[in-house]
């Protein structure tokens, strides 16, 4: 804007009062500051001309102008501090925040995962690796025919989109609200089944053990009620600790 001079004035000539429009938007101080320079062409009608940007930005060196500017700054001293003191004060996430995963259990402790690999198929980032295994009468881990023998999620690939959760037919896989996952090596960020399994609540028994709640049908018929709170996702909201790093592991 500033590079196009107004008509009747060469670029190197200072803006004088005659070429400036008077009235709204222009401070009164300028009006009678500089007299019209002799020899300049007769001022054309500038009332229709739009103000240049630098003309808008004329300072307002009055006391009221300073008071308005500094007053705004000063008034923030009486406003509430906006900063969230995160590590010292922890704010909850949205209730359905996509944090790290949990592999849930049936009320008797058997795993809900049946090793179908649908989560791995749904994953757009190929972050999930599942190997199914066969349940036997001697060693039963889940009510169905099969169970997830190996279950790994690579958190350096996972984008927390939740498509695996939608794909899971038994609601075995859900997400917790936990998010503090940073670690200093890639290997430990591949979470294994032991890290992902929900903890054993009172009344649960670590598999393998036979089905305690009746036949397979009894396990699978009660679908999650529509409208029922989705509590199981937060069962294992406890952060995983115990990750130790080598002293002096800094390479540079």
């Amino acid at each position, binding site marked *: 804007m500033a590079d196009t001079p107004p008509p009747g004035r060469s670029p190197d000539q200072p803006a004088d009062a005659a070429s400036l429009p008077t009235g709204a938007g222009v401070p009164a101080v300028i009006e009678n500051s500089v007299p019209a320079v002799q020899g300049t062409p007769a001022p054309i009608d500038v009332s229709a001309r739009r103000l240049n940007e630098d003309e808008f930005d004329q300072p307002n060196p009055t006391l009221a102008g300073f008071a308005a500017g500094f007053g705004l700054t000063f008034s923030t001293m009486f406003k509430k501090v906006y900063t969230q003191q995160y590590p010292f004060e922890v704010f909850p996430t949205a209730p359905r925040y996509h944090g790290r995963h949990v592999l849930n259990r049936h009320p008797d402790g058997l795993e809900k995962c049946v090793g179908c690999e649908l989560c791995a198929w749904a994953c757009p980032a190929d972050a999930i690796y599942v190997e199914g295994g066969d349940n036997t009468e001697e060693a039963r881990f889940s009510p169905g025919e099969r169970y997830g023998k190996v279950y790994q999620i690579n958190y350096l*690939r996972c984008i*927390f989109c939740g498509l695996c959760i939608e794909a899971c037919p038994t609601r075995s896989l859900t997400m917790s609200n936990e998010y503090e996952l940073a670690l200093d090596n890639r290997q430990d960020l591949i979470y294994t089944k032991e890290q992902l399994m929900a903890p054993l609540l009172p009344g649960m028994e670590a598999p393998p053990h036979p089905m305690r709640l009746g036949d397979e049908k009894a396990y699978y018929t009660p679908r999650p009620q529509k409208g029922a709170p989705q509590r199981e*996702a937060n069962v294992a909201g406890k952060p995983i600790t115990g990750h130790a790093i080598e002293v002096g592991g800094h390479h540079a």
Partner: protein
Amino acid sequence: MGLEEKLPDGILLASVEGLVNWTRKSSLWPVTFGLACCAIEMMTFGAPRFDSARFGMEVFRPSPRQADLMIVAGRVSQKMAPVVRQIYDQMAEPRWVIAMGVCASSGGMFNNYAIVQGVDHIIPVDMYLPGCPPRPEMLIDAILKLHHKISNEPLGPKRAAKLAGQKVELVPSSQKFAKVRHGASEEAGND
């Protein structure tokens, strides 16, 4: 890493180590290095709501010589890789790197020919931060874990040899520092 490695025998550095590490971790100046969407969260981290100035790192340096920390925020394309390396090389030692987000850490969902599969292929990484993108709290958590790592750094090769094999635990920041916990999540949503 620095001058301390050139020191001759017989100079006691007992609590200098703690002091040096404290100064290093208390003013980690990050170099401006936003590459993609993670940079938006990184900017939020510097803005008033999360206020990185609380950790002595308010100003993102546009000049690598004045920076100690590179937060690689976003996917690194093959074309960008030499630039990342050059900026890293221009930073003065000691220097640290956080790979922010899954793309910088491992390539993330972009498992293809255009993206470097993890920035640790070109520069050494000290902290990997999952998430797509990670929320600013996750970045603060990663930085505080890095602080913990720095404050346990041995000073000089002799000290490093003495401490070799020892380990320090990385505790989630909310467990380590939280004094106040604001109300738990509202009753979880429905299916």
